[in-house]
């Protein structure tokens, strides 16, 4: 059996996966989205020399660029650990077939290399090299520079794969690399060793003596061989799939007081902390909390309250949209059970609503620190918060009753479009831009306080009527329950 057969099977599995069966329109949108990202990154590569010239006049753009390359690769190691997955399971059906080990090894290597993160850097390096390095240092240096980058990408790739296969404890690895970066940065700060100078020194040396790139290639070959050897000796399913026996049997005794609702929320928390995809979704919500740091100051300065409101909505309420778009899908694996347990549907919906309120309140509390940037942030954030828990919660739960797609919890969340349909896009638009439009109009024609007040009141009204709304949502849920169940069973 040849490698191409493996790859064609992978290709089929990609297109025939149950969840890949999206509407054509959605596939086009997603494809367009990817294209846009790639074009933007390539554009960045082209524009970078001119940016650097503009920002740091008098400095050589190549020196500036190369001084950050080592940072990039170190951070890349961190990112890869989160983003990349071992393709081991995909060889399961072949292990018992008449296929040589070498073919399987080759397949595993090639399959693992096919990942966005391996192609993305080339979209920066190639344009940058063509635009400025090639004209300055000539074709040979430019080619060798690119070969070196390619080698370093592959090197990083196989280091990640190896460490993942060795199933080194995730957080230890993370902390080690982070400490390494912090340490190097610290040395840089103390003036012991300039990190950036070292980085640019190395790469400038390669431009001067192009053949030095072979050292990088040698490094890549070594990591590849180490990986290959390890794999060859461990080509057994139980050794390939690193089973995590680690078990934090955490119990949320605080929630015991709240009876059935508390129990459902505690179940949901376990779901979040013990499964990869919901966990990373929540982490992303946490990161978005920091958006304020980057976006608030400029809009505060220009008194653009509508934009401030948009970001306040994100900062205080992103969890609702991010987590809530799959509100029921998270539990798609055991939805049959959930629907036949002794569980009241109104209580179930109320538990979901309570989860939103609890997490958003937490987000809101943390975000109050932004008041240090200017007091006018606070009323806007309060309005956004009230609107989020008073309106967006219900809109999101309603939209979730239209999501009939099974979700695999063990896959990573980034760039993962499984379970996303037209409803989710529509819902995101409604949840974010509906209130922003209202805010804009009111702010424009009636002023800041009217806008803040009205939005807050709408939110409070939603909260006041929560009992009614939850009953109504339970009805809507019951109405589509069988469709949801059917969709979740089709994996």
């Amino acid at each position, binding site marked *: 059996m040849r490698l191409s057969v493996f790859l064609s099977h992978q290709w089929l599995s990609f297109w025939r996966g149950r969840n890949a069966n999206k509407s054509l329109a959605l596939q086009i949108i997603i494809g367009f989205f990817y294209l846009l990202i790639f074009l933007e990154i390539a554009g960045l590569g082209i524009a970078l020399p001119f940016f650097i010239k503009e920002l740091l006049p008098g400095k050589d753009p190549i020196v500036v660029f190369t001084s950050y390359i080592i940072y990039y690769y170190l951070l890349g190691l961190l990112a890869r650990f989160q983003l990349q997955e071992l393709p081991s399971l995909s060889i399961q059906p072949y292990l018992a077939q008449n296929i040589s080990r070498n073919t399987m090894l080759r397949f595993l290597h090639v399959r693992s290399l096919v990942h966005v993160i391996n192609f993305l850097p080339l979209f920066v390096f190639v344009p940058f090299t063509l635009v400025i390095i090639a004209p300055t240092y000539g074709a040979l240096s430019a080619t060798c520079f690119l070969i070196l980058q390619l080698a370093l990408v592959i090197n990083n790739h196989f280091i990640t794969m190896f460490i993942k296969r060795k199933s080194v404890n995730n957080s230890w690895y993370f902390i080690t690399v982070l400490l390494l970066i912090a340490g190097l940065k610290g040395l840089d700060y103390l003036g012991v060793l300039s990190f950036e100078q070292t980085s640019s020194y190395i790469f400038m040396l390669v431009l001067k003596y192009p053949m030095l790139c072979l050292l990088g290639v040698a490094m890549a070959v070594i990591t590849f061989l180490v990986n290959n050897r390890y794999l060859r000796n461990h080509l057994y399913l139980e050794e390939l799939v690193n089973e995590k026996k680690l078990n934090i*049997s955490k119990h949320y005794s605080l929630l015991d007081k709240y009876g059935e609702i508390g*129990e459902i929320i505690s179940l949901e928390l376990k779901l979040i902390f*013990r499964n990869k995809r919901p966990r990373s979704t929540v982490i992303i919500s946490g990161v978005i909390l920091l958006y304020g740091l980057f976006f608030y100051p400029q809009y505060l300065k220009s008194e653009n309250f509508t934009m401030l409101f948009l970001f306040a909505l994100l900062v205080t309420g992103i969890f609702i949209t991010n987590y809530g778009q799959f509100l029921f899908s998270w539990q798609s694996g055991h939805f*049959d*059970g959930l629907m*036949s*347990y*002794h569980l009241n549907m109104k209580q179930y919906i109320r538990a979901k609503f309570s989860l939103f309120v609890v997490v958003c309140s937490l987000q809101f509390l943390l975000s109050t620190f932004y008041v240090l940037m200017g007091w006018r942030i606070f009323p806007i954030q309060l309005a956004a918060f009230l609107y989020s828990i008073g309106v967006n919660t219900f809109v999101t739960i309603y939209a979730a009753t239209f999501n009939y797609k099974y979700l695999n919890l063990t896959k990573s969340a980034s760039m993962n479009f499984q379970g996303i349909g037209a409803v989710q896009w529509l819902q995101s638009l409604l949840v974010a831009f509906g209130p922003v439009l209202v805010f804009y109009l009111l702010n424009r024609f009636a002023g800041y306080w009217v806008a803040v007040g009205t939005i807050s009141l709408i939110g409070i009204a939603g909260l006041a009527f929560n009992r009614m709304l939850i009953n109504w949502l339970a009805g809507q849920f019951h109405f589509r329950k*069988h469709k949801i169940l059917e969709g979740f069973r089709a994996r």
Partner: protein
Amino acid sequence: MITINQLKKSYKGIAVVDIDHLEIHPGEIIGLVGNNGAGKTTFFRLLLDLIRSNEGEIWSKGNPVTTTEAWKSYTAAYIDEGFLIDYLTPEEYFYFVGKLNQLSKADVDDFLQQYLPFFDDAILDKKKFIRDYSKGNQFKIGIIAALLTRPELLILDEPFANLDPTTQLRLVDMIKTLATDHRMCIIVSSHDINHVSEVSSRILLMERGKIIKDIAGGDTAYEALVDYFKVK
């Protein structure tokens, strides 16, 4: 306990379940048999209101299962892994199900004590999530969790298929005791005509959605079933 009239479920015009009339009484052990595609699992899902019928209604103690929820308090089922919450440990799962039925932790622990032999030391205190257990052990967890709620109606889909011989025999005994001692109504589907005719007080034979035979359990049932399945 259960009354069914003119129940019909079809996919793309083909009837998968098509039952004219059926009464199931407390204390009965119903063995549901039939080849693949006979509609057994679909029938179970209809009983649990997990799919919507095209025609007809299922009445549980006089209430329709589609529009009421009271039946959930006395009905328990294990059909497949879709009934387990796989990121919990077995203990956490039992406590969760217990809590939904107003059982304290101590109640659940007491309950589990009597089923220790059934678990055969392979389930409790293993510090593993349910997803890391073998299929057979997952089945044990599911069955015990279903019993935990002290149901009046218990539904098990192919419980014998995934269990080891010792546990199969234990389950046969368990089902019999539960029905006689607690007047529990139990519906079990199975491909194992040996077990099913031994355990059931009544056997329903399904073919293409229809119940074509409704006979008493026991040796005569075994022979009748062998006759039916052999001809094909």
